[in-house]
């Protein structure tokens, strides 16, 4: 229903390095419930891509099935999108990336789509270190099928019908770290201030970047006794360290705010992640430390957000596979077909 959307814009809207306005990154009007966390994630993605000046059509959006997987319809409509099947987006994203390593890949999934039916493919796309940004819009329920509890729901959290969840919730961020993801963060759709820099850093990271975004479902999982409600999350969030993203061009000028401790992590493209450690925070380049921090915060009943782990220098899948730099989908007969002479030699080997 995009037609309904007013296209009026203030004349002097900020332009990015490509001379594009925010609008160039938007999508049609959402059909998600008003207040759905997923739309806030979409807004943060729009802002991040705009501010990073990524050409919108050089982005590919992939998703599975679910309200969260519908969300990509409502941002970046100059980008091709692929609503695949439930839980199988990772394999399709892998094939897409194999075919063209030059696009920016954003995978958007849900907690059901990833932690239930998609668990196997998730584990393996992480392990292969596919160069993509994988976002789980985590609301602890199956929204589109009207409110069944998902595998990321916390133990003790109550469903809208009042049933208590008696199984441990799966922490996808912890799993991602363990399976070898090289950029892992957690955030909250209600906190754009934290989410946007994380998105920018993730998009600039080379390799597999995972962000577990807690994204409340206002219709089926925003009640008291839910641990994925706006209120509960706000009350239990604890930030590993405040993340700031410094793009390449600003590098020189940007400096650490006075009176604070900063850690700079340089990404593959020269941009910088600047961390202002909260007290008791650890070095997010230390895997073991990240794992135990997650363990202990969980024990305290806290939700640890922010950049959890990063390895800026790891190889991505194409480097591991040693694929040519040119996008495979751009190769033609000359590069692909060995020709008849070679074939006749091969024939001889079968005589």
């Amino acid at each position, binding site marked *: 229903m995009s037609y309904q959307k007013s296209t009026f814009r203030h004349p002097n809207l900020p332009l990015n390095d490509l001379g594009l306005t925010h609008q160039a990154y938007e999508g049609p009007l959402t059909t998600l419930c008003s207040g759905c966390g997923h739309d806030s994630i979409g807004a943060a993605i729009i802002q991040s891509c705009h501010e990073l000046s990524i*050409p*919108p*059509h*050089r982005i*590919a959006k*992939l998703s599975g099935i679910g309200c969260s997987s519908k969300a*990509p*319809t409502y941002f970046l*409509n*100059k*980008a*091709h*999108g*692929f*609503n*695949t*099947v439930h839980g*199988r987006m*990772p*394999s*399709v*994203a*892998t*094939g*897409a*990336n*194999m*075919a*063209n390593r*030059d*696009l920016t890949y954003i995978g958007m999934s849900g907690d059901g789509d990833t932690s239930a039916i998609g668990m*196997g*493919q998730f*584990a*393996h796309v992480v392990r292969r270190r596919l160069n993509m940004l994988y976002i789980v819009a985590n609301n602890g329920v199956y929204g589109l099928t009207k409110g069944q509890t998902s595998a990321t729901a916390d133990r003790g959290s109550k469903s809208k019908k009042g049933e208590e969840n008696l199984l441990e919730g799966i922490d996808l961020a912890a799993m991602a770290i363990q399976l070898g993801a090289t950029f892992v963060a957690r955030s909250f759709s209600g906190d754009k201030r934290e989410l946007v820099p994380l998105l920018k850093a993730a998009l600039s990271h080379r390799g597999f970047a995972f962000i577990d975004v807690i994204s409340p479902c206002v219709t089926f999982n925003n009640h008291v006794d839910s641990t994925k409600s706006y209120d509960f999350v706000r009350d239990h969030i604890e930030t590993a360290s405040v993340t700031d993203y410094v793009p390449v061009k600003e590098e020189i000028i940007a400096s650490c705010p006075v009176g604070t401790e900063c850690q700079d992590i340089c990404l593959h493209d020269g941009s910088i992640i600047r961390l202002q450690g909260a007290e008791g925070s650890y070095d997010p380049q230390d895997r073991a430390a990240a794992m135990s921090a997650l363990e202990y915060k969980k024990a305290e009943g806290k939700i640890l957000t922010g950049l959890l782990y990063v390895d800026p220098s790891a190889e991505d899948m*194409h480097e591991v*596979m*040693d*694929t*040519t*730099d*040119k996008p*495979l*989908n751009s*190769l*033609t*007969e000359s*590069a*692909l*077909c*060995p*020709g*008849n002479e*070679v*074939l*006749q030699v*091969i*024939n001889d080997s*079968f*005589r």
Partner: protein
Amino acid sequence: MQKLKSVNEFVIRFANVNGTGSASANLLFAKSVFRMGLPVSPRNEFPSNIQGMPTFYEVRVSEKGYLGRRGGGADIVVAMNSQSLARDMRSILPGGYFLYDCTKPIDPKLVRQDVNMIGIPISEICLREYQDPRQRQLFKNVIYVGALAALLDIEFEVLKGLIKDQFKGKEKLVIPNIYALELGHKYASANFECPLAIRVKRSDKVNNHIMVDGNTAAGLGAVYGGATVCGWYPITPSTSVVENFMKYAERLRIDPASGKKNYAAVQAEDELAAIGMAIGGAWNGARSFTATSGPGISLMTEFLGLAYFAELPIVLINVQRAGPSTGMPTRTQQPDVLACAYASHGDTKQVMVFPASPKECFDLTAEAFDLAERLQTPIIVMSDLELGMNDHLSEPMEWDDDTRYDRGKVLNAEQLDKLEKFGRYLDVDGDGICFRTYPGTHPTKGAFFTRGTSRDHFAVYSELGDIYVDNVDRLERKFATAAQLLPKPEIIHQGKKSAKAGLIYFGTSTSATLEAVDQLAAKGIKVDCCRIKAFPFALQIEQFIDDHELLYVIEQNRDGQMRTLLINELEQAPKKLIKVVHYDGLPITARFISESIEEHQQGTAGKKSPLTAASR
């Protein structure tokens, strides 16, 4: 006693223990016959197991060029497995020859009076000649090949040549292998009247043909067809398709400047992921494929439905094996015809091509990529274990260097600029095929959302009935277009005017069927032939059916699945199409076909259980 006599027409069966390297020795034998100019067809009957179980290797030599499995007993049995001696003795024809290791005396109860026993003390020879126990085991196989050379009059030079080729790069292995051959050859010459009444004689029947398995050819077809993205998961008998694709790509697909790979193959975590990768690659404009067998097909059904409905051009190579479920993983069948034709829930139809020889595995696999991109739908290449994993005499592979890949209806940036409004699902020219765009093509035009849900001409989600109907009816139009583009059947008429009866068959039933045609002709039964090469069916197939009173549909599955497709898709009267099905896991035989048809013609048919067929 009776001795079977024959020059250049016989079957020899090797009984070994698997995991002992016998296969390469047996292939050495088959290849030597091949290099003597004789048509030959080796078949490996191996267990679904790695080591220690009985395994068989049957070689048919036929100067006449009959290369289907002959069935019945063998003329010569080489019995190297003490476990299966009794069974091996049974598998031999009266007057046949039984070559065995006589180091230990054989149980007299096993010995048949109507069989010629050829005892060679192979273990003893090895014990004497070799210290290393591994060598003792390994050279046993080479020794019996040497003995056979003497017994069957195979040119020793040919064997030497093969050994030299086989060990290129490992020259120091050449001498000992030739020595082992000589050991066998000497013993046989010294102790038996060589050659036997059954033997080979140089001929010139193989011309420029090659001997290769279908999976190797299919793998090469993918290389030549321009495949760059491959997602796969190991499963017998399809594994070697991708292994061969990678083997040749590593040689032929390296960027000269950077030394990097001009292809990407990923071993997926399962078949769902394997086809998912192919779909992702296809969506993104790369020629993408996967290969699988049996259970893998079932696991790919959801994604096959998506690819059909979202119109994504992937190639799926299905090397069929005996089902259902895990079935018999190392036995052959053609049992997935229906599962593939109507793969996935909802109203779905898939395009299939049916290779019958290694050359066709190469050609049709390469062509499948053109067809997929032209039709924007999955193309399933229906091979099977018999074709894919056994070496077959085949015409050499050919490639026309003027070939340009048909990338189908794809719009580039310039074309989009000219376009006023792009509609992904607009059927502008009525063939049911619409123009697509690759991601990243144009800054402002041509982007759309690919989905498995119903959508309008502009790829916008819709639940309106008429929009849905318009879309699925277009897919039917596209299917009709496919029927015109696909390879045409191979039709053979016996005489000027067509015979009363016609045979319809496909894939690995071909050689046995053509042999059966001669057998029937010898009995005065004239039949015409129609080999199906693709589904949806070409007009010519319907014509062939109309031109004949009676049709025998020959296939290797229980339910007559191709017959079902013919009846259903061509609206043919079932009564007119007679089921001729062979499904015991071994390749169909000419004898089974001709006898079934003869019986039916004499009306003596009656439901004959293929059980007996198994032993034919």
